[in-house]
Structures are given as C-alpha cells and as structure tokens.
C-alpha cells in the first residue's frame, strides 16, 4: 500500500528561475509576425517593477491607428484615430485654412461703403451734405481699418495653430509608441485565458479594414474643417435628392409616401376589425363602469370609511391615519370625484393585468419555449415609450377612458407576467416531485404546490403592476383619459403652477396610500 513518496524539492522564492522557453513560445504563437521584437518587449514589461514599463513601439508610433488595427486592438484604434484626426485638423487649419476670412470680407464690404460715401460727398453740391458724407466715410473707414487689423491678427495666428497641431501630433504619436506594447501585453494575457475568443497575430484582413476606415473618415473630416467650411453635400443628408431618385421627380418624399401608406393600412385594419375593437372597448368599459359606480356612485362617507378601515386592517394604525389625512386633502381641495375616477382607472387596469397576466405568467413559467417567444414582446411593451403606442391605440380604439386603460395595461402587465413566471420556475423540483409521487394530478400540483410557493413572487409582480399603472394613468390623459391626470394636463397646458402642484400632490398621496395598503396586505399573507 505504501508507495515510495517522491521527495518534494523546496526552493527559496529568491532562487526560483524564470523559465522563459515556454513563455516565449506562447508569446510567439500569439504575436505571429515580428515575434522576436514583441518577445523582447513583453519580457521588459514582465520584468518591470515601476509604474510604466519603459518600452517603445516604433511601428505603433509611426503607423498609429493602423498598427492598432493590424493587431486587432479596436478600442485603441478608435481613440487614437480621433486624436490624430484632431491634430491633423489643426495642422490643416494652419496651412490651408483662412481664420480671418470672415473679418476680411466684412472689412472689404466696409471699404466699399467708404468709397460709396466718398463718391456721394464728391457728387454733393451743398456744403452740409459734403460734411455729412465725409464724416460718415471717415467713421466707416475707421471701422474698416479695425476689421482689417483684426483679420490680419487672426491671420497671424495661423502659424500658431499649425504649431499646436504639430505639437499635438507628436505627443499623440509618442503616447501610442509608449503604451502600444503594454496594451498588447494585456491583450496577450486575455488571449491566454481563452485563445479562441481573442484575436491574435497580425492579419491582412484587419490591416485592410483599418486602412479603409481611416481613408473613409480622416480625409473627409479634415477637408470639412479646414479647406471648405461650407460644403452643402456634407452638411445635410440629401434626402430630397434620394427621394427624387427613388420615386421620380415631383412625387413627394419617401417619408410622405411611407406615412400615407401606413395611414391607409391602419385605417383599413381598424375598419376591418371594427367589431373586435369595439367589443374589447365595451368589455373594458364594463369593468371600469362597475368600479366607477362603486367608488363615485356610493356615498362619499361610506367610500372613505371603507378605504380607511381597509388601511387599518391591512397595514396598521399609522397607515390608516396617513390614509385619512390623504383622503381629507383630496376631498377638501375638491379632488374627490376625479381622484376616485383615477382609482377606478387604476383598479380596472390592475384587475385586467392580473386576470390576463397571471395565467400567462404561469404558462410562461412552465413552458420554456413560450417564454422565449414572449420575452421580446414583453421587452417591447416595457421599453417602447408610452407616447409611441398611444397612436395605434387611438387608431384602433379611439379616445377616452377605455382606450386609456388598454394603454395602461400594455405598460403595466409585463411585471406581473415576468414575476409570476419567475416564481413558477423557482419552485423546487424536489417538492414538485414529491407531490407527483403521492399521486397529485397536474391541476393539484399547480393549486397545492406551484402557486402557493410562487405566491410571494406573484405578489411582488402585482405590486409593481399597480405602481406602473398608477404612473401611466397620468399619461393617458393625453388621449382623453379622465381623473387627476386630466387636471394636471390642463394645468400644464396653461402653465398654471398652483393647480398643477396641488393636483400632483393629490396623485402622490393616492400612490402612497395604495402602495402602503397593498404592501401591508401582502406582508400579512406571508
């Protein structure tokens, strides 16, 4: 059993020799062309102990961004391309540019006016006129001289600009030469971690790409900023010319053609699916009407009492007092009816979000494929700015509260779907397996195991949905939604600071009360 133990050789750290052979071979493999120079440079970097290893890469300094491109260090390529172009622009301005051109032009114009005045003076017969024109001419002459002087002064600055440009170029080149090897060595270290992911060697493809990019970018920029500062073709995209080319002369622009086409499509679709869209609106309106009737139709003391008691039961006395104070603020400032309309809007939106979102979330939680398919749609629903999908909503569903609720649902539903799916996927396999092992059917598994265990996540989703719906009901006032949002929109339109802020606070209190009550209720359920 006892194997002869190999004796372990112990060497003091100071006596350990650096084994260069293997390292050198690996560096050569990475570098490709011109390996020896880089092996030497990398050794220098590896041996260095100071802040900045003292190496200089002459190729990098001379070729600049092209060197970086040839070694596929694209970050360095772009930064030094910009720096070098900046230096070249200064040089170009120094050589070809005409910094005093504008002033010189003005001076010449003024000189011409002087001549005009002098002509008039000589043509005049009355002494008074002669005096007047002569004085004017003298004043103008002064201004013209001034302009000439300024123009000359600016012209004299041209060599200065040229010098600055040259100086900058030298600095940039030197900087490239000094950091090139260090940057390349970093790249080498990354390459060692995963050779397949980091490009190595010097490749013709990259050199060509670097040259093409430089050739396409540098000359145009330098030309634009130095020789000709007023070149129409480069200033604005010639969309009219392109439109004429594509559509033919006098047929409008591409934009108008496309917009007309889309408008026609949308109108046709809205007409074709009119019954469906009307049905959806009617269903949403039914839910909203029910809630509105309950909140506004019921006597206000009853509604207030119920809200306060709910706050007490779910979140305790402190939240109840806060709720009472908020309701008093809303009622005293005459916001009661509109605030309740907002609550009804939020309530209807959240109700629909939950009724549609939770089953969808359960489905997405169980089927990976369905979730993969739905994920881009969910992302779109959340990232698309609300203003953008207000337009199709108007086109298909018209304006008013029910279309507003539909817009709110689009914005508010993703969290409840996502978090339900997340909760479903987080249910431990072992517990599901145990339930199945005891004979649970799919429905029993869902009802007894998956939903109860996913519930905290689902509740978080519902809470987020409530808050998102609340923020959206302000925006839907743009398409004719009512409630507090409408008050604020009106205040905004007339720049009415006082009413706007009072309405804003009413929404804030409403949001805080809802959030507190809902969170309190969830905490109790846990």
């Amino acid at each position: 059993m006892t194997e002869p133990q190999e004796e372990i050789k112990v060497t003091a750290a100071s006596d350990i020799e650096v084994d260069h052979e293997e390292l050198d071979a690996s560096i050569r493999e990475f570098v490709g062309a011109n390996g020896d120079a880089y092996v030497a440079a990398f050794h220098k970097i590896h041996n260095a102990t100071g802040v900045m290893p003292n190496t200089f890469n002459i190729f990098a300094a001379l070729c600049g961004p092209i060197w970086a491109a040839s070694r596929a260090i694209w970050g360095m390529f772009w930064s030094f391309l910009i720096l070098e172009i900046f230096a070249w622009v200064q040089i170009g301005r120094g050589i070809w540019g005409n910094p005093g051109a504008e002033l010189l032009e003005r001076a010449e114009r003024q000189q011409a006016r002087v001549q005009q005045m002098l002509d008039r003076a000589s043509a005049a017969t009355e002494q008074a006129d002669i005096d007047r024109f002569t004085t004017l001419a003298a004043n103008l002459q002064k201004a013209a001289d001034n302009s000439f002087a300024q123009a000359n002064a600016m012209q004299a600055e041209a060599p200065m600009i040229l010098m600055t440009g040259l100086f900058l170029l030298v600095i940039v080149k030197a900087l490239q030469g000094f950091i090139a090897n260090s940057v390349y060595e970093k790249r080498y270290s990354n390459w060692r971690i995963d050779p397949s992911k980091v490009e190595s060697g010097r490749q013709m493809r990259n050199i060509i790409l670097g040259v093409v990019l430089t050739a396409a970018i540098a000359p145009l920029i330098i030309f634009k900023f130095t020789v000709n500062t007023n070149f129409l073709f480069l200033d604005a995209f010639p969309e009219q010319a392109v439109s004429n080319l594509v559509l033919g002369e006098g047929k409008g622009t591409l934009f108008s053609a496309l917009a007309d086409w889309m408008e026609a499509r949308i109108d046709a679709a809205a007409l074709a699916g009119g019954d469906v869209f009307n049905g959806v609106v009617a269903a949403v309106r039914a839910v909203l009407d029910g809630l509105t009737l309950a909140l506004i139709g019921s006597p206000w003391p009853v509604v207030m009492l119920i809200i306060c008691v709910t706050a007490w039961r779910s979140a305790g006395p402190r939240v109840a007092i806060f709720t009472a104070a908020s309701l008093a603020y809303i009622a005293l400032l005459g916001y009661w009816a509109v605030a309740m309309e907002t609550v009804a809007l939020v309530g209807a939106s959240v109700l629909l979000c939950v009724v549609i979102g939770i089953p969808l979330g359960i489905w997405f939680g169980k089927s990976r494929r369905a979730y993969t398919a739905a994920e881009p749609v969910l992302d779109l629903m959340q990232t698309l700015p609300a203003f953008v999908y207000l337009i199709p909503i108007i086109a298909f569903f018209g304006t008013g509260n029910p279309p507003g609720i539909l817009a709110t649902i689009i914005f508010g539903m993703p969290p409840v779907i996502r978090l339900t799916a997340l909760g479903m996927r987080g249910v431990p396999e072992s517990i599901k397996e145990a339930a199945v092992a005891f004979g649970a059917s799919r429905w029993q598994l869902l009802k007894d195991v998956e939903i109860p265990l996913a519930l905290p996540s689902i509740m978080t989703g519902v809470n987020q949905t409530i808050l998102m719906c609340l923020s959206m009901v302000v925006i839907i006032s743009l398409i004719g939604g009512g409630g507090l949002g409408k008050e604020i929109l009106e205040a905004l339109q007339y720049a009415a600071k006082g009413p706007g802020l009072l309405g804003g606070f009413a929404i804030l209190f409403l949001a805080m009360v809802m959030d507190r009550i809902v969170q309190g209720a969830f905490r109790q359920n846990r």
Partner: protein
Amino acid sequence: MSDAVVKLTDVWKIFGDRANEAMATVKKEGIGKPEVLERFGCVVGVQSASFEVSRGEIFCIMGLSGSGKSTLVRHVNRLIDPTAGKIEILGHDVSAVSDSALRRIRAEQIGMVFQHMALMPHRTVRDNVAYPLEIRKVSKSKRWAISDHALGLVDLTGYEDRLPSELSGGMQQRVGIARALASDPEILLMDEPFSALDPLIRLQLQDQFKALVAQLKKTTLFITHDLDEAIRIGHRIAIMKDGVIVQIGTPEEIVMNPADDYVREFVQGISKLKLVKAHSIMIPIKEFLANDDRALDDAPRADENADLDQLIDLSVETYSPIIITENNKDVGVVDKARLLRGIQGGKDGGGEND
C-alpha cells in the same frame, strides 16, 4: 399469488433525444455504454435491471452517486418511464396503466421519502402528512386523525401545528416518513432518506425505521450510498455501479462472497462480527471427525445462526472447538483457527472449505 410485491424485469433507461433508437441498437447489436454515448449522444442510466422484492422485505439498493440507483427506484412509481422492460407492482404491470390509474397506485400503494425531505414549506406538519390523503379526497376530519396517528408512529406528537421550517433536519425527515406512511401504502420507496442527517441522528433513525417497518410489515426499497446503512437495514442488498446491478444478496453473502473487485473494495472495511453466521465458517462434523483427533466431549454448542460475536464469547471459555447445531442436531465444528480466519474475512483457514 406470487409473493413478489415489486418485480422489475430487464428494465432499461436511456436518457437523450434518440433514446428509442439507441435502445433498439443496444438490443440488436449489444453495444456498450460508451458506444451509446458516442453514436447516439445518449446516456445509459439503468442497464438491464431485474429483481424481485417480496412482502415485508427491506431491499437496499447501494451505489455511489451517479450509479443510477435513484433513477432505478423512480421507475417503481414511474416518476421516470423506462425505455424498455417491465415493472410489476402486486402483480399489475404499471408500465401499461393509464395516467389516472397510475395516480391512484401512487396515492394508495406507494409511499416515498426523499433525501431533501421535500416538505411543503407553506403547510403545517399535519397538513404535510395529510397531503397524500388530501389528493385522494379523504375528508378533513379523517385525514387529520390519520396524520396525527402517523406522526405518533414517528414520535412527533405535539408538533402537528408547526411549520416544517421550525423543525430540525431529523424531525423533518420523520415528518417525511410519516407522510409516506399516512396513506398506509403497501410499498415504501426511500431515496437516501438519512444521507443529509448527521451520524448520530442517522443511527437513531435507522433503528427507529427498522423497527417501524418490521412492525408495519411494509415492503421497502431503500436507496443508500452507505454500505454500513445498507447492512444495518437491509434484508437483501443490490449493489449498483454505472447503471448495472453488480450483485444482489443478503448482507452476509455480499460481505463473504463479493462478486467482483468493486464490491470487494466496498466490503473491506465492514465489521463481520454481527454479520457472519456460524454455518458459513464451519466444517461438517463428519469431516472434522475424520481428519482431526481432538476430543469434542466437553465442547460447547452453538446454533448455526449464531454470529461470530457469540462464537468468540464461547471460545474464550474453553480450549475445545465449538460444535454447531441445526435444529439441535450436531452438524458442524468451528475451531479457533476457523473462527479467527472468519473474523479476518475472505481468507480461508483450512483451504478445503473454499
């Protein structure tokens, strides 16, 4: 009626998209595990497993992780469907039954205990134990009574209204056992139930479990990676390696006659004192009398089922060999040399007993 409660015949499980294709090729060409992986990208989980477990028996399946033992036991209640082979429970072929019938078998005839307890954290201990009954739509009063009784069997009376998270690991696993017993199933499947517990609690639960099963006469399949545990608990042990059952036998058979080097390595460290019985180390009395001239006049007597421990006790008192009896008839003799070799295990004393 056949006495086999659980019977597996040539059960195969191949994992992968092309499992059926691979299975057909295996049947036709008899290719091995590495070839299946190479040609079809499929993993063989269980390879031609056949065994029977009779009523009231504790059948241990022992193997290291990845040996396919958990996969194998999940075939019994078809949490995993076999790729090929036949599985019978109480004479019914469960590989052919409908979904609803399968659920009924799971709910009524099979109780299962899991390594990680798998209790539902949102239900009380009582409701956890009652869950199999709830699935069967037993009335609430009835299932509470039954679950309280089951909790009594595992000494957890008084904890009924606690949540699982309030209990220690050992107690949680006792809840798991109570849950498996609640529907009074014929068969218990124990999937490494005690592996996650600390050694002292484990010993305690093993003893408790053994007594309980003996009393309730449950047919048990017990999965473990611990041979000590298998020997303590099992009436018979199946040793699995890489999806293959290497050997099936009583603890004594496995320890005394390991089928191959793999099993031999396992049993090396096992204490034989309580395991090896007199009949497996004795020589027939006729043979002894023919070859040996030692007198047996004042020899002590021991039953053939006496273990080495008892034989040592007898041997300490006397210089004479021990006579082994079967039904009070002298059948064999164990002398000191044989006894010592028996304790060593494996090496044979006389040579003729090989």
